[in-house]
């Protein structure tokens, strides 16, 4: 079923049940997000993507990345209330991740209060506990990292903070991390992440780095095929050449 909603005065069409964030983005509205990622399912935990929805006398703050539009609503993406709550939420995140330039930039852009009275975590902390890395790892089926502990003791870690046996060193977690918090060290031969060092595998033909040996092997088990030792380009070439070999004459 199609619906018409109003976002900051502009009429926008959407399907019933669509998340408000998607509708807003499609219509050219920018709403900041931290814990949303297009290829991972929604979480609704960072609370910076809030908007205000007004219907008649009533107004309500909702989290746009998980709010399904089900009726004709009027949406304000930048009301005073939204600004105040988003500012405070960002300010709290900055105390958690004082070294994150992304958060510092957002605090500035959205006029977050400074709150010098609140104690900041260690100078080099950048993790905002958005949970994306855990989601990415779980989605792959490896599940090597998790959010451990509850409440204010929560942190992202491998089991018992020991190098994880199931980690394949693919660095998907680091790729989705909005604040670049996951330390990946890499040279021509090796990659280190989460306390383990992995040997890198290069393409048999052109020598470009494919991934860690474990990641290549894991990908093969998912496809139920022998491990691929060629990069996508060389593989295409190989297939083309085989074609030429068979039909070319």
């Amino acid at each position: 079923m199609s619906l018409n909603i109003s976002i900051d005065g502009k009429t926008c069409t959407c399907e019933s049940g669509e998340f408000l964030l998607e509708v807003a983005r499609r219509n050219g509205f920018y709403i900041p997000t931290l814990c949303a990622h297009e290829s991972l399912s929604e979480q609704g935990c960072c609370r910076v993507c809030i908007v205000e929805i007004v219907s008649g006398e009533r107004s309500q703050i909702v989290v746009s990345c998980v709010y399904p539009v089900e009726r004709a609503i009027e949406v304000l993406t930048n009301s005073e209330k939204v600004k105040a709550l988003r500012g405070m939420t960002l300010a709290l995140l900055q105390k958690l991740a004082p070294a994150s330039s992304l958060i510092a930039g957002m605090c500035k852009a959205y006029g977050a209060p400074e709150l010098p009275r609140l104690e900041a975590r260690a100078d080099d902390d950048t993790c905002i506990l958005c949970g994306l890395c855990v989601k990415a790892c779980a989605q792959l089926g490896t599940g090597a990292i998790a959010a451990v502990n509850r409440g204010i003791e929560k942190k992202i870690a491998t089991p018992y903070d020991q190098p994880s046996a199931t980690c394949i060193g693919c660095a998907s977690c680091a790729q989705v991390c909005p604040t670049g918090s996951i330390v990946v060290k890499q040279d021509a031969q090796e990659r280190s992440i989460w306390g383990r060092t992995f040997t890198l595998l290069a393409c048999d033909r052109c020598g470009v780095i494919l991934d860690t040996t474990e990641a290549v092997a894991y990908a093969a088990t998912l496809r139920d095929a022998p491990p691929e030792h060629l990069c996508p380009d060389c593989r295409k070439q190989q297939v083309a050449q085989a074609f030429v070999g068979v039909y070319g004459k």
Partner: protein
Amino acid sequence: MSAPTHPSPQGSKRSGEQAAVEQRTLLVCCGSGCLATNAAAVADALAEQLALSGFDALVKTGIKRTGCNGFCENGPIVKVMPDDISYYKVKPKDADAIVASLQGEPVQRLLYRADDGKRVLRHLENPFYAPQQRIALRHIGTIDPESLEDYRARDGYQALEKALSLSADALISEVEASGLRGRGGAGFPTGRKWRTAVGFETACSYVVCNGDEGDPGAFMDRSLLEGDPHGILEGLAIAAVAIGAERGFLYIRDEYRLAQQNITKAIAQTEAAGLLGDDIMGSGRKLHLEVVRGGGAFVCGESTALMASIEGRLGEPRAKYVRSVQRGLWDQSTVLNNVETLANIPWIILHGGAAFAATGTEGSSGAKVFSLVGKIKRSGLVEVPMGSTLRHLIFDIGGGIKGSRPFKAVQTGGPSGGCIPENLLDLSVDFDTLTANGAMMGSGGMIVMDDHDCMVEVARYYTNFLAEESCGKCTPCREGLRHMLRILTDITEGRGQAGDLELLEQMGTTMRENSLCALGKSAPNPVLSTLRFFRDEYQAHIHDKTCPAGVCPALTAFSIDAAVCTSCGACVKACPAGIISGSKGAPYRIAASGCIACGSCREVCRFDAVRAERKLHT
């Protein structure tokens, strides 16, 4: 034949002939509280004495182990029925006296001593029980929770039978008419919840009983699950009939082993008797119930976290824009109700919604179970009509403050509830009034505080609990609690700063408005409600560096007033640091160093000779 010399209860004057076959029953409270004070041994001793007495020939006697009577601090409790004589703090060695009394006078020394010092014989003469109106707790303390026959003998499963004969619409209308609101905390109208669930057509639907009971100090749900398991199953079965569910779960807090055991046993009994299972009472409808052990975290009691936990996922809440009645367990329509909510259901179906609505207030019908604890003379589980005043609960039922100290506040609603001051003692206890005054109903916890409780420390204590128990998923709750806790700790330790109170309020607003689930939304309540009613006390800590209640150790020093001290020496034994000295005839003294300011001496001194003073920092 010799008729017993007991006063007979009203309405049951016995003729000589009846007396000979009269079934006398000794009810031994075997709730967790009484079991902890050796009730099982009391029951065994009574059984042994009965056997020795050869009593059966004269008066048929039986012994029955029941659920919790709610007055645990005076347990173990033994009731003689139908004479209706209650004995308290019974020890195994009292068994012969009790058994002998069945043919003679009641055992005076085991009777309850009322406020005026007189001994009371009957249950309902006891000031703790007299004002109560028991609906949810109606069977507890009188039936044997392990006996299906006992439950059936008291109209058990008749409500289910009636429900099966009604249309879903008529059944739900009855619950709507009762005005029953959920007893798990949020107070959502139960009938409306069921009605909405019926409106969503999913492949199947589920019913769930929330028995996670995470509020520290609350034990009403445990008491119900342990003491009246069939009552809960019947309530849940009626919910299932109403929404057409064929499967249900009872999610019971991990520590509640006896509750899990009794419920599991009750499920097996009902299936064997054809009351539940493949064919409910011959109606052709199915209902299979299962016990699920709780995930061991406070937040697992939250509805969406609870369902995630049943599905085997991490017990964290999710956004509730799509409600569980539409998409709950395994994305199917699900009705979740609290234990006490369900305990009211069979009563409502049997007596009608209107009868239930006749009790309580307009917006909050029926009665509610409270766990009344803290600095109060009589503590325990009580069920009173909604709309009773706090004063009635605390002073009439609870008997007032221990040691006759001044009342200061009552904390209601569990860890994220609020504190209500003395000038509001006449408030009606109902959902809306409590919320309007910064507190809440929660699950019905009430902790009474006197002038020796520091409200800043109380706020810090609950904030600390919530900081540990929040799931930590969303920013406002996790970070708000982190910083609130730090600031409150600073204030109680003398490091409070100007502007702290405004900052606490500002963070509180963000938490309330922007947290994901009700834990975070209500987490600032302990701070906001104490700030609302006890702001002076915060200011004294921040600006004068004093703790007016004499509680916060960093700001408090104790001394003994030589003019008042009777040198009884009680404080010497109480002092964990062992630094109080003196001798009979001379006033006692607290040594200049080594005091940890725990206040134990002040609590034990019956002459009010211990003074709390501002600690001078040198």
